[in-house]
């Protein structure tokens, strides 16, 4: 394993501490229990947004704490859900008299730990469960679809709405709506190495890829020979559009997300493939985001996320945001 590391068991603490120092103008980091929170708290009452999940997906979620997005984020061990006392401590730190809205990716561990955290706090609270990954079959009696790169789109848009002073109920409804309008799917070219394990989670030979992969280096829909970017784009977007069923001339946000080990050059190439294909299908890409936002340590590969835009989603996507990983208009 070649990683920047001193002691494996200190990776998280050292990384979090560095993160706090590097962005000390906007965020603060509290340790034991660990959470990241906004430094300059809003003067007005607002719904407090708290997300969290396993580490290894940076900048998700800590990188999205700040004006216009999250109020706090709770990082767990690498790829492991955070513990309920982290959510409790974060909620007590950032609540602003209008309740707490938890944004949780749909994994059993995250759901259970956030539920236990919610049981421990006295503030009114609601939870949005993000499940944008169309690589996984959805069904009412299974865990269902995973939450992946679409999560940050929910965090951005609901964060913007919360900033206007909207109620907990309205934020929850809007978040569920954005989640429903969003679909993602990805491909991995390599595995990734969880530091504590010291070796890759799975093996892929040089000419193989994992199609429909998740964000933990866990296996996907199927393993197959690599294909051209256009062919991959075709297969992924076909699956996404089947799920979203966009109207003719539908405006969308197209997000190409890198998993951590793929250069931006390739991600922009993928964006070009996606944009062209959507244009051919009379779908208008009016908003875009390309980069490593929801990563899987050093895994090579990437995902497409499409969000169908209506006036509200577009407005709350465009609004000002100032976080370590996402910043515009301020």
């Amino acid at each position: 394993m070649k990683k920047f590391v001193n002691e494996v068991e200190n990776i998280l603490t050292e990384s979090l501490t560095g993160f706090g120092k590097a962005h000390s103008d906007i965020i603060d980091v509290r340790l034991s229990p660990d959470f990241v929170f906004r430094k300059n708290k809003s003067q007005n009452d607002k719904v407090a947004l708290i997300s969290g999940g396993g580490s290894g997906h940076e900048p998700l979620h800590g990188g999205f704490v700040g004006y216009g997005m999250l109020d706090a984020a709770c990082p767990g061990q690498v790829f492991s859900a955070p513990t309920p006392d982290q959510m409790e401590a974060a909620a007590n730190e950032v609540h602003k008299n209008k309740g707490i809205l938890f944004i949780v990716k749909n994994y059993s561990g995250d759901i259970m730990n956030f539920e236990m955290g919610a049981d421990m706090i006295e503030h009114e609270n609601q939870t949005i469960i993000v499940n944008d990954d169309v690589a996984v079959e959805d069904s009412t009696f299974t865990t269902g679809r995973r939450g992946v790169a679409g999560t940050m789109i929910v965090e951005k848009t609901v964060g913007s709405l919360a900033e206007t002073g909207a109620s907990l109920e309205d934020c929850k409804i809007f978040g569920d709506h954005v989640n429903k309008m969003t679909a993602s799917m990805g491909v991995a070219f390599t595995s990734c190495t969880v530091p504590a394990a010291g070796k890759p989670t799975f093996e892929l030979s040089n000419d193989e890829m994992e199609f429909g992969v998740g964000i933990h280096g866990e296996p996907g829909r199927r393993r197959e020979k690599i294909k051209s970017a256009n062919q991959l784009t075709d297969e992924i977007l076909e699956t996404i559009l089947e799920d979203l069923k966009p109207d003719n001339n539908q405006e969308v946000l197209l997000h190409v997300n890198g998993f951590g080990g793929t250069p931006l050059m390739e991600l922009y190439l993928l964006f070009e493939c996606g944009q062209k294909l959507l244009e051919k299908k009379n779908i208008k890409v009016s908003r875009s985001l390309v980069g490593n936002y929801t990563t899987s340590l050093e895994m090579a590969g990437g995902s497409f996320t499409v969000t169908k835009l209506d006036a509200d989603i577009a407005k709350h996507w465009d609004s000002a945001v100032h976080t370590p990983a996402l910043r515009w208009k301020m």
Partner: protein
Amino acid sequence: MNGDQIFNSINNIQISIKNHKDEIEKLDQEIGDGDHIFNILRGLDEILNLKEELMDKPIDHIFKQLGMKIMTTVGGSSGALFATLLMGMSKKYNSDLNALHNLSEMFFEGVQSMKKRGKADVGEKTMLDVLIPVSKSLIELQNETDFEKVANNINNVAKDGMLSTKDIIATKGRASFLGERAKGHIDPGARSSQLAIEAICNQFINK
């Protein structure tokens, strides 16, 4: 039941899990994401550190504190579920009952709490495929006086439950995202749970 026995059991669980570390890690990498073994080992370390502090405390207090410690240090599904198990067990402690009767009632309650927390049941390729049958068998055996017989019996139930996860298509937990592809693989949570139960049972066998 006393503090010494409880911590002795945890110690034996740790030895067994450590002996099977690579196997559990591999199972998890095949159908999960490889974090299970590290979470379990961290949790065992953390609760063994409480030995001095809790050893002489009342049994229900020990179970509750063990649960709290796991809840705040482990994370992931296993942290939430094992914490729920231990805290659930602490609620049913009744010093009027003999040890086996008491343990069976406590364990049944703990496993019921886990079912609720995980919204899962037998047949979904999780640790509950081991723990639910074990909890039911313990209730059936609670008046038995031959502890070795009980231990052998429970060992077999746990093993059958663990092996049953091999052919299940998961509907809950991380493996559910794999659909058919997880078939043929034993669930890592079921394996670690079975090993833990075996480590406890073996204390009563050949003595």
